[in-house]
C-alpha cells in the first residue's frame, strides 16, 4: 500500500530521525505471523494520519543494522519517534485502538 513508507538501513536516519513530523516505524519480516496481523492496522493508520505522522516500515531481514541500533530482538515492534528521539516502543501485536492511543500522544 502506498501510504506506508518503506525505509532501509541507508534511508532511516534521513527519513525518520530527521523527519519534521513525528514518525512510527513498523519493524517486520516475511516469516513472522503476528507481523502480518499488525501490518494491515499500520496501513490503516497511515491513511488516517497522512500528513500528520510519517508511518514507515522496515523489513528486518534485509536491514540488520537499524534493529540492532534500537535493541530490537522481537517483532513485530513499533517504534514511535519525535524530534529524532524514541518516544515509545510497542513490542508485540496490539490492537489498533492501543496503537492509535500511543500515536495520539505524539501529536
Amino acid at each position, binding site marked *: 500500500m502506498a501510504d506506508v513508507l518503506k525505509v532501509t538501513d541507508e534511508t532511516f536516519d534521513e527519513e525518520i530521525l530527521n523527519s519534521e513530523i513525528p514518525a512510527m516505524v513498523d519493524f517486520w*519480516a516475511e*516469516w*513472522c*505471523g*503476528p*507481523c*502480518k*496481523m*499488525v501490518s*494491515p*492496522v499500520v496501513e*490503516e493508520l497511515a491513511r488516517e494520519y497522512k500528513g500528520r505522522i510519517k508511518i514507515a516500515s522496515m523489513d*528486518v*531481514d534485509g536491514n540488520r543494522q537499524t*534493529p540492532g541500533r534500537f*535493541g*530490537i*530482538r*522481537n*517483532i*513485530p*515492534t513499533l517504534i514511535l519517534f519525535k524530534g529524532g528521539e524514541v518516544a515509545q516502543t510497542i*513490542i*508485540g*501485536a*496490539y*490492537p*489498533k*485502538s492501543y496503537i492509535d492511543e500511543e500515536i495520539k500522544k505524539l501529536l
Partner: protein
Amino acid sequence: MEDLIIIGAGPAGLTAGLYAARARLKTKVLERFSPGGQILTTDWVENYPGFPDGISGFELVDRMRRQTEKFGLEIQNQEVVRFELTPEKKTLMTDKETFESRSLILAIGAAPQKLGIEGEDLLTGKGVSYCATCDGPFYRDQEVAVIGGGDTAVEEAIFLTRFAGKVYIIHRRDELRATKLLRERAFAEEKIELVWDTIPMRIIGKAGVEGLDLKNVKTGHESHLSVQGVFIFVGYNPNSELVKGQLELDSLGFVVTNNNMETSVAGVFAAGDIRSKVLRQVSTAVGEGATAAFAAEKYIEALMHKEPL
C-alpha cells in the same frame, strides 16, 4: 439487530462465519487484531488435513478468510470490552460502538502461559519470547533455551535450530509430552540438547537475557546456563476475562459447553481454544466453529417462531 455476532477471527471464528454466511444469517465477526489467531505464530502446519506438504500458518488462515469473503462475511476490526447477555438479546460494547444480536459465538481463543518467574516480564522483548517465528532470526549463531516439553516446545525448538547455534530444551520431567514423531526429530537434531527434570528459577540479565538459573526437581541441584534467548512454551491460558462471571468456566478458566457448543447462557456458543476440552488444534477449532454456527442457526429459528407476529 444482527442474527449472530462472532467474536474472534481465528480458525474457529472464520469457520463459524463461513457457515453463518452460507446460511444467510445476518452476521458480523468482531476481531481485535486482524484475522488469524494463534496459528499465525507458527511457521509450518503439517497436521491440518488436506495439505500433504504442509502449509504456513498465515497461508492457511488467509485462505479461510478469503473463502468467507466469497460468501459476503463481514469482519470488523473491533475489540469487545463488555457484554450483557439475555436469551433474546446479546449486547456487545467496544470502545466505539454497541452491537446487538440474537445469538453470539465466542471464538476468543487462548494466549501463551507465562512461567511467572523473576526476570520474565522485565526481559520480555529483550530475549524472552513466546514466538519462535517472530524472534528466532535475531539469535543467529547464538545459544537459546526453550522451556517446555509439549508439541509446541519441540516444534519451535526444531525451528530455532535454523538460526541458533544451540538450542536447549528444558523440561521438568524425564520424558517429553510431544507427539512421538516430534520427539524423534528432536533427538536426531544435533543442535538440540535436552535438559531433563529441570525447571527455570529465574531469568538473568539487565539490558538483555544473559542466562537462566536452573534447578533439578529430583536432586534439588541448582545450576546456571548461559543463553541469549529464552523461548517459553508451557501451555495456553484462555482469554476468558471477558466472560468471567457471566458464563460457566472450568477450573482453568475455559468455557464449559456441551456437544452443540452451547454455553451456560441461552443463545451463547463457544468454539475453538476457549472451550473446555482435551485437544486444541486448528482441526478441532474448525469443526467446533461449524457446529456452533449450525446450533446458532437453529437457536434463531426457534426464537423467531416464538416471537409474536
